[in-house]
């Protein structure tokens, strides 16, 4: 009886996994097919047409290294969006970590008055929806000339990322023993050396996970970029949204594959960290 239930359970698990993987399969079929009509399950013709239209792959006959470089240097929208997404994500992640590091240290290691209130203030952007603050912020950003600027978009991305990084790193510092730093200092190491040789190696596993997921939060941001970017800052999520609304499945699928690529890499890279301590997982609901 028990083994029969077990067998059914396993089949149900396979069924669940099948449904979860279907979208990914659909992305690849759509992106590499040509005239994939209903009710064909497997497309009759494979094609790179969507990628050519996206200007990621040159036309046939030009697929040499030079052809690729020429095409990418002609600055098509997809490359612009890719560069914007990457650079905004990178800048925001670095800034948020630099800002969060001292704050998380204080929150994780010290006790003081109003600590709970401060944590409450920090957490609130992870619970309240972005639409509640960005509509009001929009007018102010227009007044101060931040609307439509790269800097303005970076600034507004800090709002969902900051709480996540501070909280994750507070969790890391809560399990961190600062006594090693005192020993290093007594042995004559200066502040910088102590940080570089003692603190950083101790916190780096958690730090890497926090940084990667902070990057992903910025990477997937649609609403904030759309409103504050005011149509001037094109990023990948904006491109996915507009192509999807205009109803070209092959093109949408191809952009989506570019868009999910870092996510899958990051998951593969972090899977062994992620399943362990839950300190880093608390903020994932925001992704």
């Amino acid at each position: 009886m028990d083994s029969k239930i077990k067998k059914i359970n396993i089949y149900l698990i396979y069924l669940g996994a099948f449904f979860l993987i279907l979208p990914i399969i659909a992305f690849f079929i759509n992106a590499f097919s040509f005239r994939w009509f209903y009710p064909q399950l497997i497309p009759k013709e494979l094609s790179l047409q969507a990628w050519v239209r996206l200007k990621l792959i040159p036309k046939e006959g030009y697929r040499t290294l030079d052809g690729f470089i020429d095409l990418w240097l002609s600055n098509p929208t997809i490359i612009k969006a890719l560069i914007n997404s990457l650079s905004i994500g990178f800048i925001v992640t670095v800034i948020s970590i630099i800002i969060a590091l001292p704050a998380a240290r204080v929150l994780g290691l010290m006790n003081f008055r109003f600590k709970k209130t401060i944590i409450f203030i920090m957490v609130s952007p992870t619970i309240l929806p972005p639409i509640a603050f960005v509509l009001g912020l929009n007018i102010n950003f227009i007044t101060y000339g931040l609307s439509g600027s790269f800097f303005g978009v970076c600034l507004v991305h800090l709002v969902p990322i900051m709480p996540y990084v501070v909280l994750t790193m507070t969790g890391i510092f809560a399990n961190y023993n600062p006594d090693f730093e005192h020993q290093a200092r007594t042995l004559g190491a200066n502040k910088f050396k102590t940080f570089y040789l003692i603190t950083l190696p101790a916190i780096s596993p958690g730090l890497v996970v926090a940084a990667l997921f902070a990057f992903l939060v910025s990477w997937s941001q649609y609403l904030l970029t759309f409103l504050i970017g005011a149509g001037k800052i094109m990023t990948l999520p904006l491109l996915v949204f507009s192509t999807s609304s205009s109803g070209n499945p092959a093109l949408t699928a191809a952009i989506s594959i570019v868009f999910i690529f870092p996510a899958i890499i990051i998951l593969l890279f972090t899977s062994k960290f992620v399943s362990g301590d839950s300190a880093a997982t608390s903020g994932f609901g925001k992704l």
Partner: protein
Amino acid sequence: MGGDRLKIIVSLSPPLLIIIILFFGGIFYGLLQSLGYHPAIQKYEINLNAYYNVMFSERYSKLFWTGLGLNLWVSFVSTFLAAVFALFGALAIRKTFFGKTICNFIYSLNLPMPHLVVAVGMIFVFSQSGLLARMSAQVGLIGSPGDFPVLVKDKYGFGIILAYICKESAFFFIILMSVLQSLGENYEELAQSLGANKWQRFRYVILPLVMPSLFSASIIVFAFSFGAYEVPALLGVNYPQMLPVMSFEFFLNPDLNARSEGMALSIIIAMIVMILVIFYFWLTQSKIRKD
């Protein structure tokens, strides 16, 4: 001690200032404008007209109340089903079986996936000419695409629910796996040696142990799905329309009155989420006191 105090203030101010100025400042300005205060067009009075219009005027009230209903329906159902799906997955994947590592990976695959992509994926899989419809046609279950049920861009929000189940189950799954891992199997073995059957071990041993984390994860997921824009914007219909989409469309309307109403809607969404979170904290606090 004085040095400590300075250190605390210096370390905490930068992130706090960012959150207070950009986040709370944004909400404050949204609130002011929802109350009709528009210095840009020389309007300085404070009133509740926008709120009244959104909730009770003949023009919008139907849209608002059906939207609120859809919001509650989508958020509750998707949070609950995602949690159940993930709990089932996590419990089964703990055991050893063929393909365990791959299943583990697939069940957490949607964690880093952007919501937008998951929503697009739902269109590709569940639409009437999607992958699932093609599969059904291949095995002869349906003939034309029209025979396949409308599962995306439908008025009951099924597509939105499916997208949230797909996406958020990975979040639940990761949290459950880490909780179950830290618990080990000792409790279950003990219960089994005391004669508890499979159902009893689940109901009286595992469920109470995972419930606190499951519940707090549910709050995050519920709050998110209640206020998120992308998924309902891609997978929803014009009527009934989820509140975040309605709010954003009002806001983009060139008419400035509609703008106030959009802001009023976003404040209403935030207030409902806040009330639910406070209720949750009150619930857990009173439970802790009781225990």
